[in-house]
């Protein structure tokens, strides 16, 4: 049998690294590194190595289940149809689904005649997405090249825990040119703050107010935030000079990039998202980019917004994130998570490696993936929707048209949102411990001491 290499992409975060699979006949044998991919040049984070389990995990769901008993497809679909047509139905679309699947889900909701459809993913991601809707004239999304070529990076949150593959680009900024700055806003010492030239250690949860403080310096307008910079600095837990210095070094750099990692440890992710975009317009050649923790968070949300419009938000945000995690784990058929939500009917889905689909990633590029393996037993969401109702689904271009319309914008008042940031109270002290390169490890310390004294 001849072994062939097939290219695909990892969707465990919205960076979208490339990777390869070694296939033998129809079987996927091994995972390999895609050195020619411009996104990651072959590197892969620990999570990325689990991509192969999307195909050949031993516990994958193969048959549809009703109340945890295997049934035939017809029986299960009939049950779903009955559930959908009787009374109020809510549809949750996982943020790991392809654009085509999300489009079909929106069509399904339209044909059922209600608007109870929402994207399920990490709650912080969805909150941050709301910030993209606030209109900022002149704001630009950075590409991945911009990050590597910037002279100043402003990083909010621990991006390297989410997408470690970015560290190559962050290193290129840090060691590239003398005078390059990396400003990290994070309450903890994290993997990201190791690389910081200026680490703003704020109180936990105060990221939004810290950014509002930076905006106050750069916009140079006393009316917009009814707080003096000193009060902001005191509330955030930083000396005023440090805020001033960070703002100045950011605006003075010839080119800059703001990287934001939404997280549950931050308050008001939408405000942070909005402020990063406003910050990028305050001086020339600055751009902003947000990395979500689910691959297709942008694409799914844009499709639902464009096709359904104003939707009721789910009643319980906690339920949202919990359901979202269950939906996101569909591919490995991690039944424990689904049993926890006590699903009546379980339908196995084809993973994105077994199905054709397009995905919209953090920098706005659209990645189209071809299937690399035959399906184990699942159907794609598209086929399930078509089996449920007679949908009229257009070609691929129709999905692209919807995506290209982009995030719907609404006008907001900057001053009002700045004052909302004022009301944020800090969280309790963060439980994370200090992380250092050397720490208490005597072995490494000895090496370093020896090198310095004898080198």
């Amino acid at each position, binding site marked *: 049998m001849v072994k062939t290499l097939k290219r695909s992409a990892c969707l465990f975060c919205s960076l979208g690294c490339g990777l390869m699979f070694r296939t033998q006949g129809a079987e996927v044998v091994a995972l390999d590194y895609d050195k020619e991919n411009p996104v990651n040049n072959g590197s892969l984070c620990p999570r990325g190595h689990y991509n192969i389990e999307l195909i050949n995990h031993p516990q994958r769901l193969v048959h549809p289940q009703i109340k945890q008993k295997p049934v035939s497809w017809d029986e299960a679909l009939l049950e779903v149809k009955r559930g959908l047509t009787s009374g109020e139905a809510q549809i949750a679309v996982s943020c790991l689904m392809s654009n085509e699947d999300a489009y079909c889900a929106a069509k399904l909701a339209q044909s059922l005649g209600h608007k109870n459809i929402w994207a399920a993913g990490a709650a912080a991601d969805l909150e941050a997405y709301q910030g993209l809707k606030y209109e900022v004239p002149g704001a630009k999304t950075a590409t991945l090249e911009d990050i590597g070529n910037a002279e100043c990076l402003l990083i909010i949150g621990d991006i390297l825990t989410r997408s*470690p593959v970015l560290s190559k680009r962050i290193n290129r900024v840090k060691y590239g040119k003398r005078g390059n700055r990396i400003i990290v806003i994070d309450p903890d010492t994290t993997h990201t703050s190791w690389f910081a030239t200026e680490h703003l250690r704020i109180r936990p949860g105060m990221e939004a107010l810290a950014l509002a403080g930076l905006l106050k310096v750069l916009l140079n307008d006393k009316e917009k935030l009814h707080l003096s910079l000193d009060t902001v600095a005191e509330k955030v837990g930083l000396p005023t000079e440090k805020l001033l210095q960070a703002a100045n070094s950011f605006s003075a750099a010839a080119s800059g990039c703001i990287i934001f990692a939404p997280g549950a440890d931050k308050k008001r992710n939408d405000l942070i998202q909005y402020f990063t975009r406003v910050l990028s317009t305050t001086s020339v050649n600055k751009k902003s980019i947000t990395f979500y923790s689910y691959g297709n968070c942008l694409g799914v949300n844009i499709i639902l917004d464009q096709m359904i419009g104003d939707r009721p938000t789910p009643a319980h945000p906690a339920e949202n994130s919990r359901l979202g995690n269950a939906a996101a784990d569909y591919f490995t058929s991690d039944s424990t998570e689904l049993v926890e939500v006590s699903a009546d009917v379980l339908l196995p889905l084809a993973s994105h490696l077994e199905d054709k689909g397009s995905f919209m990633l953090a920098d706005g590029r659209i990645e189209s993936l071809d299937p690399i393996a035959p399906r184990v037993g699942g159907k794609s969401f598209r086929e399930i929707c078509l089996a449920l109702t007679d949908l009229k689904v257009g070609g691929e271009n129709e999905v692209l048209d919807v995506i290209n319309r982009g995030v719907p914008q609404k006008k907001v008042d900057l001053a009002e949102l700045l004052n909302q940031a004022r009301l944020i109270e800090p969280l309790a002290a963060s439980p994370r411990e200090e992380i250092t390169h050397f720490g208490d490890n005597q072995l490494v310390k000895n090496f370093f001491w020896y090198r310095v004294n004898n080198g």
Partner: protein
Amino acid sequence: MVSRVYLNLDLCCGCRSCAAACAYGHHLQSLLGHNKLGPTAEPPLHCLHCEQPACAAACPNEAMQKQADQTVQRSHFKCVGCLSCTVACPFGVIQPDLSKHITPKCDLCLDRMSKGEIPRCVSACTSGALSFAEVDEQVADEKKNLASVRILSNFIGRRR
């Protein structure tokens, strides 16, 4: 000329993708040692494949042996799990797996090396901290470049 894996601590972001790649390629058993510097800070410790390996000298059953291609390899069949090499290694690289009663040891990805590819940990490294280079070349680089003053394994490599 022999090639070895080098770690630049300045670039390492501690994401442990090297360990994941290693485990992926070696039956879910990572062969890398790790410095436990904190809850999440664990830069990798690579086997240096010494010229006079202490682990091979300590091994009672000749399981650990210097090969003709200048690497130190552990025989799966001869190893009795006595942990002598763990104690003998001057760099603390060999860390025992107490559940399987063996001492996992880096083999420089023999299967990939035979095809002319670089080891898995270096391929997967997200930050460019790990490099696979010829031993003497790295030493020359280090003299020129002060930024690489913290290349730990480089310093060890020079004094072998």
